[in-house]
């Protein structure tokens, strides 16, 4: 099978599934199985996206900025926490349970409190994104650090490497696949985190726009927002995947470059 053909047979099934899904949706609407005010048809939603494009773009930009800022801070927080916790076992034992607790608090419960504390700007939104995103990255990094085998550690120790060198040359690169796996999960939650926090207080962003169109009984626009959120999330996940590929060239060696006979 040629590469191109492989590509097509890989992408055909999800495309058919997606089209099938949209078709069923359209039929449900067309035959009024669900009343139209409860479920706008795909065509209405697409029209809403087209008509509202500039508005969606504007609010989408705001949400995206919050998402990216939150994700970045989440990465930094996760990196610092995981690295410190890996270095000092006591801190790992002490804070791991608290971190898990932080993940069982409903975000819609804390979002209003964050707004109360931090005001109406981006700060509470970014904070909420940080809270929802740092966890998978931290867990990923911790697992990654722990995945380093004793022999490799001993190799570097035998070369006389200090802790920082061991971290730089061994622990961090080894943890990278785990880091990116965690980041991908975080990315998929990040946009939703931003939207939820906007929903619960703000002037701009997809969450705010969503409550507004909902109040105006514009379900087609509401679904348009949902679709924009989905698209942004998927693009973000794709971006993470590509950055991961670029950062870890050793994991993506083409088979034909392989000199190894076995």
């Amino acid at each position, binding site marked *: 099978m040629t590469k191109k053909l492989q590509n097509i047979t890989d992408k055909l099934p999800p495309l058919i599934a997606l089209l099938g899904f949209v078709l069923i949706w359209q039929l449900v609407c067309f035959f009024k199985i669900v*009343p*139209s*005010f*409860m479920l706008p048809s795909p065509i209405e939603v697409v029209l809403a996206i087209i008509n509202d494009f500039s508005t969606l773009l504007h609010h989408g930009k705001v949400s995206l900025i919050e998402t990216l800022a939150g994700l970045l801070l989440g990465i930094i927080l996760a990196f610092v926490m995981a690295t410190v916790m890996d270095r000092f076992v006591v801190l790992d034992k002490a804070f791991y349970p608290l971190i898990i607790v932080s993940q069982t608090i409903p975000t819609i419960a804390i979002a*209003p409190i964050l*707004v*109360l504390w931090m005001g*109406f700007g981006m700060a509470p939104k970014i904070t909420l994104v940080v809270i929802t995103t740092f966890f998978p990255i931290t867990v990923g990094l911790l697992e990654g650090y722990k995945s380093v085998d004793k022999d490799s550690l001993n190799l570097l120790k035998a070369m006389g490497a200090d802790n920082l060198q061991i971290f730089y040359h061994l622990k961090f690169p080894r943890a990278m696949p785990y880091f990116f796996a965690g980041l991908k999960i975080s990315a998929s939650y990040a946009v939703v985190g931003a939207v939820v926090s906007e929903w*619960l*207080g*703000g*002037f701009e962003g997809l969450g*705010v726009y969503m*409550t*507004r169109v*909902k*109040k*105006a*009984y*514009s379900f087609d626009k509401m679904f348009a927002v949902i679709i924009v959120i989905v698209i942004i999330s998927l693009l973000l996940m794709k971006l993470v995947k590509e950055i991961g590929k670029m950062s870890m060239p050793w994991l993506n060696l083409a088979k034909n470059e392989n000199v190894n006979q076995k």
Partner: protein
Amino acid sequence: KMGNASKNENKEKKEFTKITFCLDWTPNTNHTGLFVAKGKGYFEEEGLEVEFVQPPEDGALLMCSSGQAQFAIDAQDTFAAALDGDKDYGVTAISAILQHNTSGIISRKGDGIVSPAGLEGKTYSTWESPIEMAMIKNVMEEENADFDKLKLIPNTITDEPAALAAKQTDAIWVFYGWGGINADIEKVDCDFFFFRDINPVFDYCTPVIFGNNEFMESNPEITKAFLRACKKGYEYAVENPDDAADILIKEDSTNSLQGADKLVHESQKWISKEYISDAKSWGYIDSSRWDRFYKWLYDNKLTKNNLSKTGYTNEYLSE
């Protein structure tokens, strides 16, 4: 699709018709008559078994549209958006819980927001709904104040007096019977003005009971019976505010009002006077005030269509 509400259940010794009633928000003194009707067995007397449910945010009307609830509480101003669209939501306003719009702007005493003019240069917490903004603008302009000089921030406030005391904001839209009374209870000195006092066009109906058209058309007697029981409940609440307040607290199955006795009782004392007020009887929707507000919306390009004379009926109310 209408659920089992329209089908009478014959299995039990007494036939009860099940009614799902969607509140506009968490139980409060706007709802006292309903809880009294339940607690004192008025619904039962009419052969009804009523369950009160909480809506998704801003979703009571839709729940009634979809038939998940036969009746729901919403307000005339927010109903406009549903009426104005090209989709038929299949709901009609059938009864006004309060005769007059008891909402207005609350602010810290001493800030000088005793009337809309005082809003100039101050901060207002808004939900950013077009009608809300137009109303604020209108009342300010009535007093020659500049709306552009009002600073707007998003409304995320749950505890209005505390928010005012902490200077999170200067002005908040509240219903006097709950938010205004709460300020007294929490001993925060406040100023308050009603919209209806500035411009009578804003004396529209809120909150309002809505019914699902399909249900009401096929069950007119049940609808009337339902409103009869409601009316009896509100009339009781008018006569016995203290007792009614206790019933509200007791009948709220979530116990959420426990510990808020003082607020409920004080609020009840005030609001009981508003249930019937100057109307001939409870629930009556004053068509002149209804139509006048919708005409204002149309004149101010807040709706595409002139919604006057649409969306309500008094035909299910008993004399």
